[in-house]
């Protein structure tokens, strides 16, 4: 537990004082699902991401685009509790206690959140799957972590989710190693969504897949997001992906947000020089 708290230091104590003194800055009960306030993360002298703020509303998909090294993964890591920012707040609207700064939660609380209400889809399925465990076991793990102890019902749920991500349920006892890249990615999605999360973090979920496989995965994601009313922060450098999935965009460069707006607006009428460059370079491809 002390692992993540060790680097907190004075910044967090200051934050704590501020938070207890003014509760007015909390969003109203039916406010944003996620409120990101001035999140900054440095790696030594190098900036990972700096002073990032935005709100994510229930059911909304926010795309985060920018060139390699612009800080997208760093930001996602900070939001999902995998990295500890140097400053800022990440307020998540918890089911039982309303908005809570996830950076100040105890590790057990954050872990609980991460395996119930959050999903994290890694670019490389190997990072998000247990390669030595069957597809059914991969999908069932969250349920078992949540206390499910009825084998038949766990298996039923796993089988149902394999169907939803278009994996033949006859493969429920196969290991992910025997799956194609696209299937592995869909299995990773099922493994995350089985607990009915409200917020998904996705880092290049279609990266590394060939184009036709990508298209099918995007279709699937779009359906799931809509059906489950899922909110998502979607990191990608592929503008076609955000065009299809994201309601709003933030554009990052050198760790900072340079432009933000509705996806179509930003892509069709980019304001910032850098966004213009980004959009035109894609259009030329």
């Amino acid at each position, binding site marked *: 537990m002390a692992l993540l708290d060790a680097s907190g230091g004075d910044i967090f104590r200051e934050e704590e004082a501020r938070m207890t003194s003014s509760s007015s800055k909390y969003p109203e009960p039916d406010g944003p699902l996620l409120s990101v306030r001035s999140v900054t993360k440095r790696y030594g002298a190098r900036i990972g991401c700096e002073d990032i703020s935005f709100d994510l509303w229930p059911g909304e998909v926010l795309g985060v685009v920018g060139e390699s090294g612009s800080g997208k993964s760093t930001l996602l890591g900070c939001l999902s509790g995998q990295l500890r920012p140097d400053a800022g707040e990440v307020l998540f609207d918890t089911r039982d206690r309303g908005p809570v700064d996830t950076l100040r939660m105890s590790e*057990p609380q954050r872990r609980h959140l991460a395996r119930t209400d959050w999903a994290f889809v890694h670019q490389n399925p190997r990072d998000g799957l247990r390669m030595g465990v069957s597809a059914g*076991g991969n999908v069932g793990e969250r349920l*078992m972590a949540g206390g499910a102890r009825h084998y038949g019902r766990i298996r039923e749920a796993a089988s149902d989710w394999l169907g939803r991500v278009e994996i033949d349920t006859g493969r429920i006892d196969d290991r992910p190693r025997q799956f194609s890249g696209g299937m592995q990615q869909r299995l990773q999605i099922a493994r995350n969504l089985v607990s009915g999360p409200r917020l998904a973090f996705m880092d290049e979920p279609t990266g590394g897949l060939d184009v036709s496989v990508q298209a099918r995965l995007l279709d699937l994601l779009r359906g799931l997001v809509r059906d489950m009313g899922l909110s998502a922060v979607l990191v990608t450098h592929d503008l076609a992906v955000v065009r299809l999935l994201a309601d709003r965009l933030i554009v990052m460069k050198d760790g900072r947000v340079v432009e933000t707006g509705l996806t179509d607006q930003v892509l069709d009428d980019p304001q910032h020089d850098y966004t213009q460059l980004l959009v035109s370079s894609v259009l030329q491809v």
Partner: protein
Amino acid sequence: MSDQAYNFAYLDEGTKRMIRRAILKGIAVPGYQVPFASREMPMPYGWGTGGVQVTAAVLTPGDVLKVIDQGADDTTNAVSIRKFFQRTAGVATTERTNEATMIQTRHRIPETPLTGDQILVYQVPIPEPMRFLEPRETETRRIHALADYGLMQVRLYEDIARHGEIATSYAYPVEVAGRYVMDPSPIPKFDNPKLDDCPAIQLFGAGREQRIYALPPYTHVRSLDFEDHPFTASKADHACAICGSGTSYLDEVITDDAGGRMFVCSDTDYCAQNAKGGA
């Protein structure tokens, strides 16, 4: 008389104190794996160096020691450990479970119920029950710290998915006192119920892995399972060919080249006493 070239029970007093501290910590936190600085012993790893160090640290001159390997007192491993302590500690030894004050065991719990005057020391090859699912020790430690045991249940799920039932029949994982999940060492799952509510102190030593853990007397120990696949303590469905016991754990013994076989008690002391009508 003990060999004067050695300190009592081979280990020096400083090392014993270090091991006793680990044991006390283990008893204070039942089922928790306590790291300790395992010493070189005059026998190879895999021959029970963890158990031997634990025994050496708690042994007193008045103890009566029994050593068993898979239930038998007369196997090479058991004989050599017993001789080791006869020579280095000069303690009395026995093959009778009810005469022993200390029992070091590999892979069995005696059939004869243990008492509050006894200490049972297990030799443990792999203390971490999640080792083969999660090789990163940083992660397994975190799982134990947070009691985040979904992964443990996944292991049993995989068993049922592959074999139609929980096929794990040795080293069957248990939950200790409602908190830590523990590997009971490779005892048959038949022995698992004996871990529970046992009057004796149970100590576990893993030499190569440098871990000690413990069950204080009368600790609640529950074998993990599923509602629709409950734990069962199974054994071969036979009676012992020597003593006729229908309740003790049996080994299958090949009796000739023609494929002849019989089932006999794995606990040799129990079998001998039972055959005499005195178990």
